[in-house]
């Protein structure tokens, strides 16, 4: 196995794990759409990064911050729903990206790229993923409570504003990490599919989070291995691997 593939495996496995873990909180209709919308938001940043040769996740983060800021400003100015505004901003952002994205970089921006990953990138990604893990772990039960009822959470002493902010930051950072490996169009799948897989085959919350994390990581590892063998972009392979795991879970689920 070449070093390149080994680095790709470590990076993708880590990002897949954190996306699976965080994604297990995002089962609601509203949130599962969010992951996709944020992925699209990153594209102009990815395009710029590819044009001027800086880190893709960095470009993604910049445009996520900008996009979220614009959505927030529009929310203050109008009386439109957050979802509606997100739709406006993310499609605009997608269109903008296509304006100046060089044709030959299309694949990388849309499908991701796990080749040419440096050890430094892997190192930084693992550190960020660990920080994400501890943050998500800290807010996890509060967010579950809030998804049952925000009133119930607040009266039980949960600082909803703080938790929601941390939650959104975690999603944004995870999306920025995910964009590198699966591209701007498929980040939603990275977050959503492992949670669905886990829900099918788990009978309590603890199992569910563990299975979701493992399924996320395993899909990425399998995808990268397939990439090493087939020489097709890893992004689509990762998502297909994840979908296959989901399929297995459908047949494995215990009937009540």
């Amino acid at each position, binding site marked *: 196995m070449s070093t390149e593939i080994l680095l790709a495996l470590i990076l993708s496995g880590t990002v897949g794990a954190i996306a699976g873990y965080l994604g297990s909180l995002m089962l609601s209709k509203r949130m599962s759409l969010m992951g996709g919308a944020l992925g699209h938001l990153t594209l102009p940043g990815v395009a710029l990064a590819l044009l001027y040769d800086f880190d893709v996740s960095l470009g993604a983060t910049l445009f996520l911050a900008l996009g979220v800021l614009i959505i927030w400003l529009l929310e203050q100015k109008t009386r439109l729903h957050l979802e509606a505004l997100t739709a406006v901003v993310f499609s605009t952002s997608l269109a903008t990206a296509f304006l100046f994205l060089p044709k030959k970089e299309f694949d990388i921006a849309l499908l991701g790229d796990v080749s040419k990953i440096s050890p430094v990138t892997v190192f930084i990604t693992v550190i960020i993923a660990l920080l994400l893990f501890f943050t998500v772990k800290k807010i996890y039960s509060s967010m579950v409570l809030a998804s049952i009822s925000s009133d119930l959470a607040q009266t039980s002493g949960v600082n909803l504003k703080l938790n929601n902010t941390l939650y959104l930051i975690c999603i944004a950072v995870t999306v920025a990490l995910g964009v590198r490996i699966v591209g701007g169009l498929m980040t939603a799948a990275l977050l959503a599919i492992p949670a669905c897989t886990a829900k099918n085959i788990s*009978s309590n919350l603890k199992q569910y989070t563990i299975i979701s994390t493992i399924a996320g990581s395993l899909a990425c590892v399998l995808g990268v291995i397939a990439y090493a063998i087939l020489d097709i972009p890893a992004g689509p392979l990762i998502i297909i691997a994840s979908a296959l795991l989901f399929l297995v879970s459908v047949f494995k689920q215990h009937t009540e």
Partner: protein
Amino acid sequence: MLNESTVLTVDKLQIAYEGDQVISDLSFTVNKGEILIILGPNGAGKTTLLRALQGLLPYQGLVSWNAQKISYLPPQEFLQRHNLPPLTVKEFYSFKTSDLNSAKSMMTEIGLDENILSHQFSELSTGQFQRMLVGWALLDNPDVLILDEPTSGIDIGGEETIYSLLHKFWKNQNLTILLVTHDLNVVWEYATQVICLNKQQMCMGKPDEVLTPEQLKKLYGTGVKFYKHQHR
């Protein structure tokens, strides 16, 4: 004004929602150990009032609590039971206590089988779910319990169980209860105080004294049958 036995003082409370005055000029006090029932037609502002009392909504006026721990059960329509992670009752209870034994003994108290603890939310019947929530609310020994239509969607037998359950806890634990309901039966049976609410305070006092046929007619409009249990 504040004395030892007062749990809640509300003075000149005003709540507006998107420019509409939902509640205006509401004042009342609640003493320790009372069961206060807030009665009123749909859209009278009952849920709004309960939420404002707990700081979940902005308001004008004074709301002052003299309680250590307040537990709240939102109305059913504010509670999500599906599209959730596969949370079991045990895990839900563990958000409040790490002591499995107190979760177990609570199950006995609320008349649910211990093995319900390993059930997921989506596997519970509406009645079981509601009883389980009452248990959750009482788990950390609150001095005040606030409930909003705790029996909506439950059949008559189940309704009876929830209220007798609440009554049992009220008697044993020196609870103060604030309760929103449509059900006049419950008012006659359990309330020590009642507030009639229709955007403003229509009546306040002991049920026997204030719930006259005329008052109910004023509150609900025409067509409400006046019925009252004979107390045994």
